[in-house]
Each structure stands twice: as C-alpha cells, then as structure tokens.
C-alpha cells in the first residue's frame, strides 16, 4: 500500500464541501464500506474506491434526545439506498415524529467554525 496523501476522512469532508455524500466500494469483494477506511474490512483489500450517493435513504432506528436544558433533538441511523448505514439526524420534523421506515433525503449541514460539514436528512418529498 502506498503512503496516503489524503486521509479517508479528509476525502469524505471534501465531498461534503461539494454537497456530496461519499462512500466506498471494494471491487474485489463487492462490499460497500462506510465509514471510509484505508483497508476493506474482512478481506483486507486495499482497493477501496470512492462513490457518491444519490442521497436517498430510509430511517433504520431513531431516538429523540431530551437534554436537561434545551429542546429535544433527533438522532437516527439511516440506511442509504446504496447499501450503507450512518448516524445522522432527520430535520424539518418534530424529533419524536421521526419513524423507522420513513424515506429521507440527504442535505449538507454546512461547516461552522472548526466543525466540518456533516450530512443530515429531511423527510423525502414523495413517500416511497
């Protein structure tokens, strides 16, 4: 494996800065990989390639966090259609109204100060 000029996380963030949700695939094993890595889990292959998701997914699990101070907010696991799961939150809807099985659509939460952009989701316009 050659030296890594750019880390997996840096590449992921560069995609988010362009409004893209990126993930990886390993051609040798046909595995979809998320979070981004240098080595394919289970096979050890170093052939991971980047792909950009269409940004559509389904809520796999959900919770509303109730902090001691401040409003409740959503945390969810999203199954993205290309075959990977990530943590995110569903916005533009009451945190407790987010339902497992609900179709959702990706958008970028922009960078704020030192915090890089990250992916959030909103209810998809058409229920699928």
């Amino acid at each position, binding site marked *: 494996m050659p030296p890594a000029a750019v880390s997996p996380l840096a590449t992921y963030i560069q995609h988010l800065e362009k409004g893209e949700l990126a993930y990886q695939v390993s051609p040798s094993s046909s595995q979809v990989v998320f979070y981004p890595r240098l080595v394919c889990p289970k096979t050890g292959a170093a052939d991971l390639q980047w792909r950009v998701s269409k940004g559509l997914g389904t809520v796999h699990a959900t*919770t*509303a966090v109730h902090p001691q101070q401040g409003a409740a907010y959503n945390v969810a696991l999203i199954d993205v259609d290309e075959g990977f799961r990530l943590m995110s939150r569903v916005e533009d809807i009451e945190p407790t109204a987010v339902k497992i099985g609900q179709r959702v659509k990706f958008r970028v939460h922009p960078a704020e100060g030192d915090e890089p952009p990250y992916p959030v989701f909103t209810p998809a316009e058409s229920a699928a």
Partner: protein
Amino acid sequence: MSLTRGSAVIVGAAESDIGAVAALMSPLDLMAQGIQRALEDAGLGLQDVDGLFCATTQARTSAMSLAEYLGLPDAYTDSTIVGGSSFEIHVAHAQAALQAGLCKVAVVTYGSTQRTVGRRAASAREYNPYETPFKPFLPASAYAMAASRHMYEFGTTREHLAEVAVAARDWALLNPAAWEKKPLSIADVLNARMISDPLTVRDCCLVTDGGGAIVLTTADRAKSLQKKPVYVLGCGQSITHASISSMPDLTHTGAIASGAQAYQAAGLKPSEIDVLALYDAFTINTILFLEDLGFCPKGEGGRFVEGGRIGPKGDLAVNTNGGGLSYCHPGMYGLFLLIEAVRQVRGECGARQVADVDTAIVHGNGGVLSAQATVILGGPATM
C-alpha cells in the same frame, strides 16, 4: 491448546466500597481494597498473587499503576479494556495464563470513582467524526436506538422495558449493599424523566462509585482453600463493532456467538443454568441477552419478562443483586456480575439466595452492545 473446562477456579470475591466512596479515594485505592477483601475471602495473601488483570477508564496504564501500588514488579499482567465486559474477558485470559503456568494466583480487579468525579471526567468520550456531530447522548442513545428497532420488529413495548427495571429493583430490595432502597413500579418507570426516547432515567443504569476483585487459581490449588470452589466451565467473546452506527444488526448481539462458545465449552444448555447475571446497563439489554443466550426465542424477550418473571417471585433468577439498574454501576459493571454469580453458586446470598444453585451464566457487555463476553460458572457438582 484450548481452555480446559474447570481448569481455573474462582476462590475469592469481594466488592470494594461501593455507592458513594470517601472523598479523594482513587480507582487504585478501590482495586487494592477489593483485592485485599477478595484475598481474605480466599484465605490467601498478597504474597501469593502473581497475576494482575485489571481495567478502569481512569488510569491509562492501569496494570502499570496497579503493579506499582501493590509492589508486584514480577506479576503477569493484562489490562485488556473493552468496556464493561473487560472482566469477563479477563477471566478467560486468566484461565489461559493459569493453564499455561504463566501465573498461579490471578486477581481480576476494577475501580471507579465515577460518581465522585463525574461521568465525563471518569470516562472521557473519544471524538468520532461520523457520530459526535449529531450529539448522541452516549451510551444511552445507542441503546435507545436498539430499543427502537426491537419495538419496531417485535412489538416490544415500554411496559416490557419497565418490567426489567422493576424486577431489578425488587431484587435490590433484598440486597443490603444495593444503592436503591425504595420500591419501583411500572408507572414510575414510564413517568420518569425521558433521557433518550424510549428510555427514561429508570431504564438507565445507576451512576455510582465502586470496584472489587475476584481471585482465581488452578483447580489443584483451589482444593486446599477455604471457600467452596467456583469453576470456570466455559468462556466466549464476540466484538461486533465499537460505534452503534457500525453494529451489524441492532436486535442481534454478539452474545449469540459468545454464549454459544461458552455453552459448548461448558457442555451445558440454557435449561441447565440456575442463575443469570446479565449486564443491564439499560433495560433493553436484559431482553436482548435473554434472547441471544437462548432463554427465549428472538423477539420474545419483552413478553418473556412480563408479570415479574425475572424478579424474586418469578421462575427465572436474573440479576439477583439488583443489577446495574438498582444495585451499583460505576461505569464498567462486569466485575460485579462475576461477584454475584460466585456468591450464588456458593450459597452466600441471604434473603436473595436462589435455592440449589450449581450453575450460573455471567454475560458482560461493553461499549454500545459492542464487546460481548460470556462466562459460565459451576460448583463442585458440575465437575
């Protein structure tokens, strides 16, 4: 070489001070106190100890710190840390070391002053660029999402979750060492402050201080000691993920694999287990582990615990000390599961003693349903 059934024996077990400990006590103080008490229980002294197995979130190099504290430069050491199940894994590692002759008397120990110093100070959370931006209230939110899936897939209800908390409390009321002293009802659990939906504060483990130790030695050495020997019959482990977003299946844990390994090594099946000690960091845990360790079919755990079935008046004895929910939970609870199981096998549990205990299953959970480790223990009748 594989681990031989019964080659290691637990010959001493004790808690350190637990609950809220004296000001400025350190995690190492609690380890030392637990070791001193467990050695006294075993009829051994510190000069007999040549194996140290330890974990705490409050010392980065806990084996080094413990070797210094106890003045044991030559001890064989292992400070594997995978969260709350670290100590079940230490039992397997100690068994391997005893069997290989790397040590003759091993202590497995833990100490935490989480309540005194605060949860954040005791266990700083690592930044995860794929999770931290969403501010999950960890670990609770991870277990809440697993619960959300269990409810969605199997029709488990918040009342089912509450049954687990109530059973734990009913057991705790029989344990003088338990933190919680007042009765708890299903309604109390449902109406408690919501933490991370669907889990209320009563679905979540306590935040206490505490520590302790167990002492293990070889089967030969155990014969000359004072307490009824408690044999390590089988161990298993499975680490399926570290972060909840990487858990392969939120309703099927690594306990399926770790339990199968332990049952096979022990030559036992679930119906032959007399007492269960299951890591109940959250109420959903107990339901998942009852299923994954074969005490009820997958998906039936919620209905299985209805009607106080796992409480003191029920037909399956689970978490007889009151568990992490009502007895004690200093952050990595796995050692206390072992202590209680040893006491049940010995018949030392007083008002909460289960009749005729020959076998116990101890199941540790670390991280966010991440590191699963099972130990099956048995009394002399099992050998």
